[in-house]
């Protein structure tokens, strides 16, 4: 089934893009319920490339919302051809699906209240730390404690808004999560100046565009497009648009400058997954 996706797109005359609905600023719904975001812009370029490749300028593009639970099965059963969200490229996932080169590198860090006095993982000893289902913060903390013995009380929010609310309401001292998500939450909160992101990166994770497994021809088009954007500094412009400027629907500004890790990734694009 190696030539699967391109063949399928050709046969059906449509390409289905899977997107998230609240992954700011990668892929989310704007005020008109249209999916927008950094990853969506990148994918639009991919779709253009597919049109050119197949010589089908009138290719129909369908959008399909996905969740973190169903995105992989939906990719596998053919509901979506391309997933543009904030999916970490991990070795475990590579058993099931394929990934493009990384278009973003996130770091797991801590979101805290400014008045909490927490600056480093050492300050977390004996405190409740929240994270969202799917991430094991205590494990990351253990890996990074560097000889110190830190005991934290782990609590879990059902989603990022819940977890953030735990920090906001004082249930948790810190929210251990991808820094870009923390930045988005802080920017959207009622009082952005009350929170900050602190501490070292506990782990770096690459985000990739998800495609079907072992579909080299299609993945090649995706990679070629993305690498082209990165080399031509067009990716940088898109980054600027979504991370450094006010974005819809509420015109908040994430003010999240490009990290050295991402710069490096743009220089040397790779589709290596994290362990």
């Amino acid at each position: 089934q190696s030539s699967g996706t391109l063949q399928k797109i050709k046969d059906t005359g449509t390409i289905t893009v899977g997107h998230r609905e609240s992954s700011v600023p990668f892929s989310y719904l704007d005020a008109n319920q249209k999916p927008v975001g950094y990853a969506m812009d990148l994918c639009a370029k991919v779709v253009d490339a597919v049109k050119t490749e197949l010589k089908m300028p009138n290719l129909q593009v369908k959008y399909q919302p996905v969740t973190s639970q169903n995105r992989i099965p939906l990719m596998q059963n053919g509901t979506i051809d391309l997933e543009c969200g904030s999916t970490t490229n991990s070795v475990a996932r590579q058993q099931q699906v394929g990934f493009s080169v990384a278009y973003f590198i996130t770091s797991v860090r801590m979101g805290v209240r400014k008045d909490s006095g927490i600056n480093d993982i050492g300050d977390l000893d004996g405190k409740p730390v929240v994270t969202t289902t799917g991430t094991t913060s205590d494990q990351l903390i253990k890996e990074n404690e560097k000889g110190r013995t830190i005991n934290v009380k782990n609590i879990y929010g059902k989603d990022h808004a819940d977890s953030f609310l735990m920090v906001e309401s004082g249930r948790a001292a810190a929210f251990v999560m991808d820094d870009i998500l923390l930045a988005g939450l802080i920017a959207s909160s009622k009082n952005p100046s009350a929170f900050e992101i602190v501490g070292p990166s506990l782990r770096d994770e690459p985000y990739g565009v998800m495609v079907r497994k072992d579909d080299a021809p299609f993945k090649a088009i995706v990679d070629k497009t993305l690498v082209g954007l990165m080399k031509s500094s067009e990716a940088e412009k898109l980054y600027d648009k979504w991370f450094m400027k006010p974005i819809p629907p509420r015109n908040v500004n994430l003010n999240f400058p490009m990290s050295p890790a991402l710069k490096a990734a743009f220089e040397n694009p790779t589709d290596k997954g994290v362990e």
Partner: protein
Amino acid sequence: MSDFDFSVIIENWGFLAQGLRYTVQVTLTAMLGGILIGTVLALMRLSSIPPLQWFAAGYVNIFRSVPLVQVILAFYLILPMVLQMITGQQMPIGAANSAYFTFTVFEAAYYSEIMRSGIQSVPRGQVAAGYAMGFTYGQTMRLVVLPQAFRNMLPVLLTQTIILFQDVSLVYAIGATDFFGAADKITQRDLRPVEMYTTVAVVYFVICFALSRLVKLLQSRIAIIR
């Protein structure tokens, strides 16, 4: 928390309303379809033909033992595969459409139990009277038993519908946007959970409360006939 910011509700009211409409549509579809299939299942269960009894009992017991979320997810993932096997081509049916099907099939199990006790609440003598008048089985059911069973169970059927209405929120598992899902998505994006949840609670309460008052009204209406 004293500084409630309800602007987020107003800005996104269109999206919420759209979600509410979807919730209502799924509820109505699953109610009508579920009662229809449920009645057939109830008749099968009460029939004297063992294979029909087994089928109906199995259907009801399996669906009643599995969490709805899992069923929603499983149907969403598996249904396209089944369709593909039948038609030979990939047929993604979409989250929104899958929910109509799943809820109808799932709720049928619950409605069937209600209809079964409704049918059993009709005295045996009524069936005998129907037959004695020369009615066939079908006529006895259609003209005598089911209208009474339905009337007796109307409040319970509606109560189940209230539960169904609330359960539609579980379609978040497949990413369809019902009322709750819309609220949740806006919450994740704009981060006003307290305001959003309060609004959601009020809207659900008002609708379900109105429905449960309707149940009471119907109960007293029916009491006159008896």
